[in-house]
Protein backbone atom coordinates (compact mmCIF):
# COMPACT_ATOMS: atom_id res chain seq x y z
CA UNK A 1 0.00 0.00 0.00
CA UNK A 2 1.55 3.27 -1.10
CA UNK A 3 2.31 5.80 1.62
CA UNK A 4 0.63 9.17 1.10
CA UNK A 5 -2.77 7.64 0.47
CA UNK A 6 -5.42 8.36 3.12
CA UNK A 7 -5.47 4.71 4.10
CA UNK A 8 -1.86 3.63 4.01
CA UNK A 9 0.36 1.33 6.05
CA UNK A 10 0.13 3.14 9.42
CA UNK A 11 -3.68 3.32 9.23
CA UNK A 12 -3.87 -0.37 8.33
CA UNK A 13 -1.54 -1.15 11.27
CA UNK A 14 -3.97 0.62 13.63
CA UNK A 15 -6.91 -1.39 12.26
CA UNK A 16 -4.85 -4.56 12.47
CA UNK A 17 -4.09 -3.87 16.12
CA UNK A 18 -7.81 -3.42 16.84
CA UNK A 19 -8.55 -6.76 15.15
CA UNK A 20 -5.73 -8.54 16.99
CA UNK A 21 -7.09 -7.30 20.31
CA UNK A 22 -10.53 -8.58 19.28
CA UNK A 23 -12.16 -5.16 19.50
CA UNK A 24 -15.67 -5.26 18.05
CA UNK A 25 -16.03 -2.43 15.57
CA UNK A 26 -17.41 -1.89 12.10
CA UNK A 27 -16.97 0.62 9.31
CA UNK A 28 -20.12 2.72 8.87
CA UNK A 29 -21.25 5.72 6.84
CA UNK A 30 -20.09 6.61 3.36
CA UNK A 31 -16.79 4.78 3.80
CA UNK A 32 -18.81 1.59 4.22
CA UNK A 33 -20.76 2.52 1.09
CA UNK A 34 -17.55 3.24 -0.86
CA UNK A 35 -16.09 -0.12 0.19
CA UNK A 36 -19.17 -1.79 -1.28
CA UNK A 37 -18.86 0.05 -4.59
CA UNK A 38 -20.89 3.25 -4.15
CA UNK A 39 -19.41 6.12 -6.18
CA UNK A 40 -19.46 8.54 -3.26
CA UNK A 41 -16.87 10.81 -1.65
CA UNK A 42 -16.11 11.10 2.03
CA UNK A 43 -13.61 12.86 4.26
CA UNK A 44 -13.18 10.26 6.99
CA UNK A 45 -13.72 6.64 7.89
CA UNK A 46 -16.32 6.34 10.61
CA UNK A 47 -15.86 3.44 12.98
CA UNK A 48 -18.64 2.25 15.26
CA UNK A 49 -17.34 0.52 18.39
CA UNK A 50 -19.30 -1.88 20.55
CA UNK A 51 -17.75 -0.53 23.76
CA UNK A 52 -15.59 2.58 23.84
CA UNK A 53 -14.64 2.01 27.49
CA UNK A 54 -13.19 -1.44 26.79
CA UNK A 55 -9.65 -1.48 28.29
CA UNK A 56 -8.56 -3.68 25.37
CA UNK A 57 -9.31 -0.76 23.04
CA UNK A 58 -6.79 1.44 24.85
CA UNK A 59 -4.22 -1.37 24.74
CA UNK A 60 -4.76 -1.88 21.01
CA UNK A 61 -4.30 1.83 20.32
CA UNK A 62 -1.26 2.11 22.60
CA UNK A 63 0.38 -0.76 20.76
CA UNK A 64 0.62 1.41 17.62
CA UNK A 65 1.30 4.66 19.48
CA UNK A 66 -2.26 5.96 19.13
CA UNK A 67 -4.74 6.93 21.85
CA UNK A 68 -8.41 7.44 22.54
CA UNK A 69 -9.34 11.07 23.23
CA UNK A 70 -12.57 11.34 25.22
CA UNK A 71 -15.22 13.94 24.25
CA UNK A 72 -14.32 17.45 25.40
CA UNK A 73 -16.39 20.58 24.83
CA UNK A 74 -17.43 20.57 21.17
CA UNK A 75 -15.03 17.71 20.42
CA UNK A 76 -16.59 14.30 19.89
CA UNK A 77 -14.61 11.25 21.04
CA UNK A 78 -11.61 10.92 18.75
CA UNK A 79 -8.56 8.82 17.99
CA UNK A 80 -5.18 10.52 18.08
CA UNK A 81 -1.63 9.58 17.14
CA UNK A 82 -0.03 7.71 14.24
CA UNK A 83 -2.45 6.11 11.82
CA UNK A 84 -5.52 7.59 13.47
CA UNK A 85 -5.94 10.61 11.21
CA UNK A 86 -8.62 9.36 8.76
CA UNK A 87 -10.75 7.71 11.43
CA UNK A 88 -13.78 9.17 13.13
CA UNK A 89 -15.78 7.59 15.92
CA UNK A 90 -19.50 7.20 15.35
CA UNK A 91 -21.23 7.78 18.66
CA UNK A 92 -24.83 7.61 17.48
CA UNK A 93 -26.17 5.68 14.51
CA UNK A 94 -29.58 7.01 13.53
CA UNK A 95 -32.17 4.53 12.26
CA UNK A 96 -30.16 1.44 13.19
CA UNK A 97 -30.61 -1.30 15.76
CA UNK A 98 -28.24 -1.92 18.65
CA UNK A 99 -24.61 -2.65 17.83
CA UNK A 100 -25.01 -6.37 18.59
CA UNK A 101 -27.88 -6.68 16.10
CA UNK A 102 -26.09 -4.75 13.35
CA UNK A 103 -22.89 -6.73 14.03
CA UNK A 104 -24.72 -9.90 12.95
CA UNK A 105 -25.81 -8.20 9.72
CA UNK A 106 -22.37 -6.73 8.96
CA UNK A 107 -20.59 -7.89 5.82
CA UNK A 108 -16.92 -8.90 5.72
CA UNK A 109 -14.88 -6.85 3.27
CA UNK A 110 -11.19 -7.42 2.54
CA UNK A 111 -9.38 -4.10 2.85
CA UNK A 112 -5.76 -4.66 1.88
CA UNK A 113 -4.66 -7.60 4.02
CA UNK A 114 -7.44 -7.15 6.62
CA UNK A 115 -10.97 -8.43 6.79
CA UNK A 116 -13.17 -5.69 8.22
CA UNK A 117 -16.77 -5.77 9.36
CA UNK A 118 -18.71 -3.26 7.28
CA UNK A 119 -22.27 -2.02 7.69
CA UNK A 120 -24.30 -3.37 4.71
CA UNK A 121 -25.35 -0.85 2.10
CA UNK A 122 -29.07 -1.27 2.95
CA UNK A 123 -28.30 -0.27 6.54
CA UNK A 124 -26.11 2.69 5.46
CA UNK A 125 -29.11 3.84 3.43
CA UNK A 126 -31.41 3.40 6.45
CA UNK A 127 -29.05 5.42 8.66
CA UNK A 128 -28.78 8.21 6.06
CA UNK A 129 -32.58 8.37 5.73
CA UNK A 130 -32.96 8.58 9.51
CA UNK A 131 -30.19 11.18 9.94
CA UNK A 132 -32.14 13.39 7.51
CA UNK A 133 -29.47 16.11 7.29
CA UNK A 134 -29.11 17.86 3.90
CA UNK A 135 -25.74 16.18 3.26
CA UNK A 136 -27.27 12.77 4.03
CA UNK A 137 -30.29 13.34 1.81
CA UNK A 138 -28.04 14.30 -1.12
CA UNK A 139 -26.38 10.87 -1.26
CA UNK A 140 -29.55 8.79 -0.94
CA UNK A 141 -30.25 8.55 -4.72
CA UNK A 142 -26.65 7.42 -5.36
CA UNK A 143 -26.84 4.78 -2.61
CA UNK A 144 -30.18 3.55 -3.96
CA UNK A 145 -28.77 3.14 -7.46
CA UNK A 146 -25.72 1.33 -6.07
CA UNK A 147 -27.98 -1.00 -4.10
CA UNK A 148 -29.98 -1.72 -7.25
CA UNK A 149 -26.77 -2.47 -9.15
CA UNK A 150 -25.52 -4.86 -6.46
CA UNK A 151 -28.92 -6.58 -6.29
CA UNK A 152 -29.01 -7.02 -10.07
CA UNK A 153 -25.46 -8.38 -10.06
CA UNK A 154 -26.14 -10.86 -7.25
CA UNK A 155 -29.35 -12.06 -8.98
CA UNK A 156 -27.42 -12.64 -12.20
CA UNK A 157 -24.67 -14.46 -10.27
CA UNK A 158 -27.17 -16.73 -8.50
CA UNK A 159 -28.91 -17.45 -11.84
CA UNK A 160 -25.58 -18.43 -13.39
CA UNK A 161 -24.75 -20.63 -10.39
CA UNK A 162 -27.99 -22.62 -10.80
CA UNK A 163 -27.55 -25.65 -13.09
Amino acid at each position, binding site marked *: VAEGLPLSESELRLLESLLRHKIRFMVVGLSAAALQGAPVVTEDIDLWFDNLSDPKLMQALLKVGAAYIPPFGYNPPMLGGPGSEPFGIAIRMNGLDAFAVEWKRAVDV*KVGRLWLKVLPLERVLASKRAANRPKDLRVIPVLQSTLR*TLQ*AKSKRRSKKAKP
Partner: protein
Amino acid sequence: LDVAKATAAPFRLNETCSTAFRIWLNFFSVKRPAFPSASAVRWGKKLAAEVAVVMARYPDADPDDVRLTLIALQSPPLVRLNRSLRRGRGFAAFRK
Protein backbone atom coordinates in the same frame (compact mmCIF):
# COMPACT_ATOMS: atom_id res chain seq x y z
CA LEU B 1 27.62 43.66 -51.23
CA ASP B 2 27.71 39.91 -51.84
CA VAL B 3 24.09 39.22 -52.67
CA ALA B 4 24.50 35.44 -52.68
CA LYS B 5 26.03 35.41 -49.17
CA ALA B 6 23.47 37.87 -47.79
CA THR B 7 20.51 35.81 -48.96
CA ALA B 8 21.98 32.41 -48.28
CA ALA B 9 22.84 33.06 -44.65
CA PRO B 10 19.27 33.40 -43.33
CA PHE B 11 18.25 30.46 -45.43
CA ARG B 12 20.98 28.34 -43.88
CA LEU B 13 19.99 29.58 -40.48
CA ASN B 14 16.38 28.55 -41.09
CA GLU B 15 17.50 25.17 -42.28
CA THR B 16 19.65 24.70 -39.19
CA CYS B 17 16.77 25.79 -36.96
CA SER B 18 14.33 23.39 -38.52
CA THR B 19 16.81 20.51 -38.26
CA ALA B 20 17.49 21.36 -34.64
CA PHE B 21 13.77 21.53 -34.00
CA ARG B 22 13.29 18.12 -35.58
CA ILE B 23 16.11 16.65 -33.47
CA TRP B 24 14.61 18.27 -30.37
CA LEU B 25 11.22 16.82 -31.21
CA ASN B 26 12.69 13.35 -31.75
CA PHE B 27 14.60 13.61 -28.49
CA PHE B 28 11.50 14.39 -26.48
CA SER B 29 9.05 12.19 -28.32
CA VAL B 30 8.15 9.18 -26.23
CA LYS B 31 7.44 5.98 -28.03
CA ARG B 32 4.08 5.04 -26.56
CA PRO B 33 2.37 1.80 -27.40
CA ALA B 34 -0.66 2.29 -29.61
CA PHE B 35 -3.82 2.96 -27.55
CA PRO B 36 -5.64 -0.35 -27.26
CA SER B 37 -8.74 1.17 -28.78
CA ALA B 38 -10.33 -2.15 -29.70
CA SER B 39 -10.17 -3.51 -26.15
CA ALA B 40 -11.33 -0.15 -24.72
CA VAL B 41 -14.35 -0.19 -27.03
CA ARG B 42 -15.06 -3.81 -26.05
CA TRP B 43 -14.85 -2.81 -22.36
CA GLY B 44 -17.20 0.13 -22.98
CA LYS B 45 -19.72 -2.05 -24.81
CA LYS B 46 -19.67 -4.67 -22.06
CA LEU B 47 -20.16 -1.95 -19.45
CA ALA B 48 -23.09 -0.47 -21.38
CA ALA B 49 -24.68 -3.92 -21.61
CA GLU B 50 -24.31 -4.39 -17.83
CA VAL B 51 -25.88 -0.96 -17.20
CA ALA B 52 -28.75 -1.93 -19.51
CA VAL B 53 -29.36 -5.13 -17.53
CA VAL B 54 -29.59 -3.19 -14.24
CA MET B 55 -31.79 -0.49 -15.81
CA ALA B 56 -34.14 -3.11 -17.27
CA ARG B 57 -34.61 -4.60 -13.82
CA TYR B 58 -34.70 -1.29 -11.92
CA PRO B 59 -35.85 1.56 -14.19
CA ASP B 60 -35.84 3.96 -11.21
CA ALA B 61 -32.04 3.66 -10.86
CA ASP B 62 -29.83 6.43 -12.21
CA PRO B 63 -27.81 5.11 -15.19
CA ASP B 64 -24.80 7.31 -14.34
CA ASP B 65 -24.68 6.02 -10.77
CA VAL B 66 -25.10 2.45 -12.02
CA ARG B 67 -22.24 2.90 -14.50
CA LEU B 68 -19.96 4.46 -11.87
CA THR B 69 -20.81 1.66 -9.41
CA LEU B 70 -19.98 -0.99 -12.00
CA ILE B 71 -16.66 0.75 -12.70
CA ALA B 72 -15.93 1.04 -8.96
CA LEU B 73 -16.63 -2.67 -8.51
CA GLN B 74 -13.78 -3.44 -10.91
CA SER B 75 -11.28 -2.13 -8.30
CA PRO B 76 -10.49 -3.75 -4.94
CA PRO B 77 -12.23 -2.24 -1.85
CA LEU B 78 -9.06 -0.53 -0.57
CA VAL B 79 -8.61 1.30 -3.87
CA ARG B 80 -12.28 2.34 -3.85
CA LEU B 81 -12.03 3.69 -0.32
CA ASN B 82 -8.80 5.58 -0.97
CA ARG B 83 -10.27 7.09 -4.13
CA SER B 84 -13.38 8.17 -2.21
CA LEU B 85 -11.28 9.73 0.59
CA ARG B 86 -8.92 11.54 -1.77
CA ARG B 87 -11.81 13.03 -3.74
CA GLY B 88 -13.69 13.92 -0.56
CA ARG B 89 -10.69 15.75 0.83
CA GLY B 90 -10.14 17.47 -2.49
CA PHE B 91 -13.68 18.84 -2.43
CA ALA B 92 -13.25 19.86 1.20
CA ALA B 93 -10.15 21.85 0.30
CA PHE B 94 -12.17 23.77 -2.32
CA ARG B 95 -14.91 24.49 0.21
CA LYS B 96 -12.49 26.14 2.68
